[in-house]
Each structure stands twice: as structure tokens, then as C-alpha cells.
């Protein structure tokens, strides 16, 4: 149901739309023409063919990995913030005690099968010890490989 308006206003609106309508169509068409003639705007990748040169976008969230230096040391203090932040319990931080009796990281168990790669653990980590990797070819035929221990070394604390 349209609102009631006077004939004069109706004609005024009609004439105005005769101008603004085509103008908006031309604006839309100019955008798609720009996209059509500019091959640099193409964003899709030819995946299996360009496997060697393919570079993932830096915001891409693959599986979880630990930030380690050359010796395999990490910043994890086994505080368990990531474990608490994880919405579907994909992380188990198993702590242990070092010789000095201090609580350090024992094993960082990561269940990739239930992980949704939401990235909440990375945001929760107060020490910047974990990140989402760029790996995207993560398909596997063996479910046992989906349960992984991320740290190579026990944490130093």
C-alpha cells in the first residue's frame, strides 16, 4: 500500500526518478566495466597448478602452531588461558614441574579434529606463544595424526 500524496508531488517524484534511476544504473555499470577490463582485480587462484607459487593471505587461519625460536624454545608458561578460551575443548595444556619446582609446560595437546580454527586461543594468549599457521593442505587419511603435541621441548618458564 503506497502512501497518499498529491498529484503534483507524484509527478515531481516521477520525473526525479526518471533522472536518478538511469544515473544509478550507469554508476553500477561503470563499476562492473571497471572490474571486467582490469585483470589485476581477479582474486581466484588456480590452486593445484600454482601450488609452488601460491601464497596464503596472512589473515588465513590454518591449524594452530607454536611460535618457536631456532632452538625450539617457546614462550608458553602453561597458564591455560587458551584452554579456557577454546569453545570446543580442542586444547589440553598439560603442565609439569621443572627442577626448581616451578610450573612449566609439559605437553601442549591439540585436537585438530574438533578445532574450528576460530582463533580465540591466539587472542587469549597473554605471551604470544601460539599462532594460526598458513598451512591449508591439512587433509589426512589417518585420524590418529589429528591429535598432535605442538611443543617440541618442555617449557622453560
Amino acid at each position, binding site marked *: 500500500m503506497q502512501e497518499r500524496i498529491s498529484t503534483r508531488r507524484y509527478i515531481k517524484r516521477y520525473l526525479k526518478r526518471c533522472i536518478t534511476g538511469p544515473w544509478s544504473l550507469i554508476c553500477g555499470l561503470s563499476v562492473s566495466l571497471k572490474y571486467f577490463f582490469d585483470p589485476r582485480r*581477479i*582474486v581466484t587462484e588456480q590452486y593445484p597448478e600454482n601450488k609452488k607459487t601460491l601464497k596464503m593471505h596472512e589473515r588465513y587461519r590454518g591449524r594452530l602452531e607454536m611460535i618457536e625460536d631456532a632452538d625450539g624454545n617457546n614462550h608458553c608458561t602453561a597458564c591455560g588461558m587458551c584452554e579456557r578460551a577454546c569453545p570446543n575443548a580442542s586444547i589440553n595444556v598439560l603442565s609439569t614441574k621443572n627442577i626448581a619446582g616451578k610450573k612449566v609446560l609439559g605437553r601442549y595437546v591439540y585436537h585438530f579434529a574438533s578445532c574450528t580454527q576460530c582463533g580465540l586461543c591466539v587472542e587469549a594468549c597473554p605471551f604470544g606463544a601460539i599462532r594460526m599457521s598458513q598451512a591449508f593442505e591439512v587433509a589426512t587419511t589417518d585420524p590418529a595424526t589429528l591429535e598432535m603435541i605442538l611443543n617440541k621441548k618442555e617449557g622453560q618458564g
Partner: protein
Amino acid sequence: MFVPSVTHPIGDFVRSWVPKLTAYLPDALHNATLDSITAFLVNALICIVAVCAVNIGSAPILIYMERKVCAHVQCRLGPMRLGWHGTLQTIADVIKMLFKEVYSPSGADKLMFYVAPMIVLIAPFIIAALIPFDHNLIVADIDMGIPMIIAVNGFGVLGILLGGWSSNNKYSLLGALRSGAQMISYEISFAMILLFVVMISGSTSLMDIAQAQDGTVLDWLIFKIPVLGFIAFILFFISSTAEMNRAPFDIAEAEQELTGGYHTEYNGTPFAMFYLAEYIALVTNSALAATCFLGGFHAPCIGVAAIDGVLQMVPGVVWLFAKIYFMIWCYMMVRWTFVRPRVDQLMAFEWKFLLPVNLVLLAAGAIYMILV
């Protein structure tokens, strides 16, 4: 003597060669009547093969082109795997379509269900026969070309309505009814624009309309009449888009609302025929636009003798196909840019805007004809 064909260079060539070839046959077959009948049948065969080659041959090209244009507008690459840049993809699709099992839903009107796709194909084929591809390259050079096109276009509506009705599916029926209303409405402005063309060129024969645009680019109907020609071209573009049921006027299909509309229940070859009809209609409507507005088979001469000589060396068929493919590209850009209007907006656009503008245009054209 039995001479059913009209005089025509290619027809005359066949008619002159058939008696020479039959001279090798036994004497019992030497007969002037038999020769003329043979020549008539050979001519008919040439015409049918030519129309089928142009129509069915262009469909895979258009499907490939549509995919590529669509992809590049949407920042994608489109088919790239099969053949060079995916050129064989459409052929693979056609083969897949042909080998699929054909079945109809339970409760469907079997006869109507299978007749509908064939009826849809009638209109584009007849229109293709009327398009002049060169000075002598036309299948049917009839005087009533434009009225014939307007009359034959109704088959498209009939086929879509039959297909939607016989499918025993509420979405199909809704799509078909919407499309029927839409196509009948837009046929009026389609006919009005063709009437404008007829009024300016003074003939209803498509050959005469194309011949009348001989000369430079400025003699083309789109530029011949200062502003009116361009407005008429735009209006023709809009109403022919609606006639073809292409987006933004694809109310009949409307995948998002009606899951495909009238061809929801079709699969395999009948579906391929609907698809084919859609793309042949694209070719014929573009050819019509090229013939009526863009100078038909004439080269785009610019009035400089040196350049015009080179341009006129290229045969008219090539120029017509260049114009057809340019028009098709325009239709595709429009399809992948604009959004579909609602049904009521569509109707309001036709009856409140397009038709009044058409009538004003027709009157202005008449005044122009009197003054100039």
C-alpha cells in the same frame, strides 16, 4: 514448370547447377519439373542447415562467453581446466546434458511437458531466418519481416506457459504466470520500438531496413535521428531484455525465489532445449538490434575514402557478427550488473514509464519525419 522459389543468387546458382548434375543420371530422370523440385529441396536444405548452424553453433560459444564475462565481472577466472582457458567446458556440458535420462514428474501432463521446449525453440529459429546477413545472404526475404517477428515472439510465451503449467509444480506455475504477464506487457513496447524503426526507414522488410542504413556510421538508425535514435535503441535494449527473460528481467526463472521457475522440473535434453532457446533468442535479438539500429551488415564507414575502402573489403557477415557479439556482450554486462526488480516494480516500469516514453518517442519521430 515448377518454380516455388523466389529469385536469389544462391538459389539461382543451385537451380543452374542441378540440371548440369542430373545430366549424368539415366535419361528417365531428365525432366525439367524434377530438376526444379530437386533444386527447391536443395535450397531448402541449405537454408535449414544455415539457420541451424548459426543458431546451434552459437549456443556453446555464448554459454562459454557468458561464463567468462560473468566471472570477470565478479573478479573470478571462470572455466580454466578443460582445453585452453576452459574452451571445451561447454562441449563437455552439452554431452553430459544429452546423455542424461529424460523423465517427467508424476502428475505432469506428459504431452504438453515434452512439447513445451520444442515450442520455445520455434520463435528464435524463425527470427534467425529473417535476419539479413549480407546483401544476398538471407533465408527468407519477406516484405512483412517486422510484423512476422512480433507475431512469432508469442511462441516464447506459449512455450514457457505450457512448460510451467504441465510440470505439476507450484513454483513452475508461478514462474510461468509471472513470465507470461511480463512478456505480454513488454511485447507492447517491443512492438512500439519496431514500429518506430519501420516509420523511420519506411519499410517492414528487414532487408530494406538494413539497406536504408547504407553509408557512413551517421546513416545508422541510432545516429540518423539526433537524440531519438539513441533513446529508441536504449528502449529496444530494455524491452528485448525483458522479451528474452534475461536478468534483470528474469522473473520467470528467479532462481532465488522460484528455484528455476518454469524449467524447474526439466532435465536432460528438454532442459537443454530451454537453455538453447534462451541463447538463440539472445543471438536473434542482438541481430535484430544490429539490423535495426547498428546498420546491419554495413561496415562502420567514417567518410574517409581510404579507411572505408579497407573496411568494405571485409564481408558483411563478419561485420554483422561483430555487431551481434558486441550487443551480446552488452546484454551480458547488464545481466551481471543489475539486480532483479520485484514483479510489481517490473509492471510499474513497463506501464508507467516505458510505454508512455515509447508513445512520446513515436510522436516525436513522426514530427521529425514531417519536419526533415
